[in-house]
């Protein structure tokens, strides 16, 4: 009944435990890159709960709604207010991420452990690695997926604000430039926040610990830094030191880059010191993302197959 002459496993393949005569697949197989892209789309869908139960859609879409709502209000205010002499949106594009950072933090705290913790907990990494997928590919796919998700979460409300500004017939050139600046800022925010969140999430297979860790790092550093900045800037009257303190929390760090590069208004009590000091903030962002990537690669080199 078995017909070994039709592509069947030959006798030299001693790895076959039980041959019931099915014909194996011998056609072309997708390459490493395609698998990485597949993992990326799967993770991105998973972060938003697409293809999963309704319960796992609640937080991502709830947070997306919480972020979209102020943008819609701002767009509406733009359209209505343009008749009464309003010349730009009431909230600058570059300040949107800082204003909505609580929902951003909650979204990340759920998204990052969702992306990596379950693979660690149920030991599914060997299944991925049994394909021509290398460990750094896995890290890159997960990192890119979470960063894309955060970027979407920020970019869509910005787009709504921009459309509102266009509909209100504000200065189109100026608005477009500011909108693009906002998008660059959003890209920086998503890269920094996603790398930090994934490093924390990859340390534990327990989702609860991952969530608590990410929230603690993101919100506590911001609370401490902004309170310390306020104290240093207004009570100790040391504006420069207050600016440098911004390096210590991810949110104020990226905000500092925006202040330096685009001349945006700082969203914390103090922006980076004027001049070349802002370049240090950009260097710190690059360094932080690179370091997080290196940590993740190192972490996944150790995960047992």
């Amino acid at each position: 009944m078995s017909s070994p002459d039709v592509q069947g496993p030959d006798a030299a393949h001693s790895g076959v435990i039980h041959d019931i005569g099915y014909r194996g697949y011998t056609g072309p197989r997708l390459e490493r890159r395609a698998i990485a892209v597949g993992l990326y789309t799967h993770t991105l869908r998973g972060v938003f709960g697409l293809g999963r139960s309704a319960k796992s859609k609640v937080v991502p879409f709830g947070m997306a709604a919480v972020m979209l709502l102020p943008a819609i209000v701002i767009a509406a205010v733009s359209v209505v207010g343009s008749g009464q002499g309003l010349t730009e949106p009431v909230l600058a594009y570059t300040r949107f991420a800082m204003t909505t950072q609580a929902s951003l933090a909650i979204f990340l705290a759920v998204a990052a452990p969702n992306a990596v913790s379950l693979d660690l907990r149920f030991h599914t990494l060997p299944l991925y690695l049994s394909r021509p997928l290398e460990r750094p590919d896995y890290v890159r796919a997960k990192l890119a997926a979470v960063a894309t998700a955060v970027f979407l979460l920020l970019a869509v409300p910005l787009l709504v604000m921009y459309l509102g500004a266009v509909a209100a017939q504000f200065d189109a050139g100026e608005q477009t430039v500011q909108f693009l600046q906002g998008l660059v800022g959003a890209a920086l925010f998503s890269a920094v926040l996603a790398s930090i969140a994934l490093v924390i999430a990859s340390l534990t297979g327990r989702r609860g610990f991952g969530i608590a860790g990410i929230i603690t790092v993101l919100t506590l550093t911001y609370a401490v830094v902004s309170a310390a900045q306020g104290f240093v800037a207004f009570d100790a009257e040391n504006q420069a030191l207050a600016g440098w303190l911004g390096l210590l929390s991810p949110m104020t760090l990226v905000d500092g880059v925006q202040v330096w590069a685009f001349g945006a208004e700082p969203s914390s009590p103090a922006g980076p010191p004027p001049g070349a000091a802002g370049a240090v903030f950009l260097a710190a962002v690059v360094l932080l993302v690179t370091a997080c990537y290196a940590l993740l690669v190192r972490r996944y080199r150790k995960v047992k197959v």
Partner: protein
Amino acid sequence: MNRTIVRLAARAILGGKRVWLLAALSLVLVAIGVGTAALGSGSSAASLEALQAIAFSTFLPLFGLIVGTGVIGPEIDDGSIVHLLAKPVSRHTIVQSKLAVAVAAILGFAVLPTMVAAVIMGADAATVLAFGVGALAAGAVYCVLFLLLSVVTRHAVIIGLVYALVWESLVGSVIPGARNVSVQQWALSVTASIAPDGVVTANVGVALAWFLIVAVVAVGTWYAGSRLRVLVLASDD
């Protein structure tokens, strides 16, 4: 109280490297005290305001969330709570023992560092005591609330976060009436009643605050025990 459960719960939240993470967190508070004292030129009131902002609005809710869900959440999550539930121990005793550990952790890693920071900032004895009592009250309420949440739902951490980050900070600042149902405001009211005038401003009457704190702790503890009696262990995703 059951000594074995206390020991196991303490190991669950303080065992291994976790105790160092919590210690590092509490060092942040002390570091703020040292930092503001080192800068020196600021007034004591301003530094106490910074301490109040950090400790009461961010630190205590987060710490309460970590230890409150940490003493029971992971056990329910991975199902190993059945071993505990199968023992001839009242479910109320289980909850009370775990809660004692959580409150002790808050006392050691959040309340004491807050008081130490206040001392470094040069506050007088009454203010230090006020911060300690207020922080302990807030910490105990958060522990009870988050422990209850993790018995009731598997998404306790998320709901707790939404409460701590969105409700307490956003809703409380926009709608004045919402302050009456904010743990932070109750604790601040307790702090304000002990501290000298003008250090902390309170939005809730002190009698109402004490009543609500005691009521939430008592009712929450009892209800968590009752919910643990009818706990359904089912995995939903």
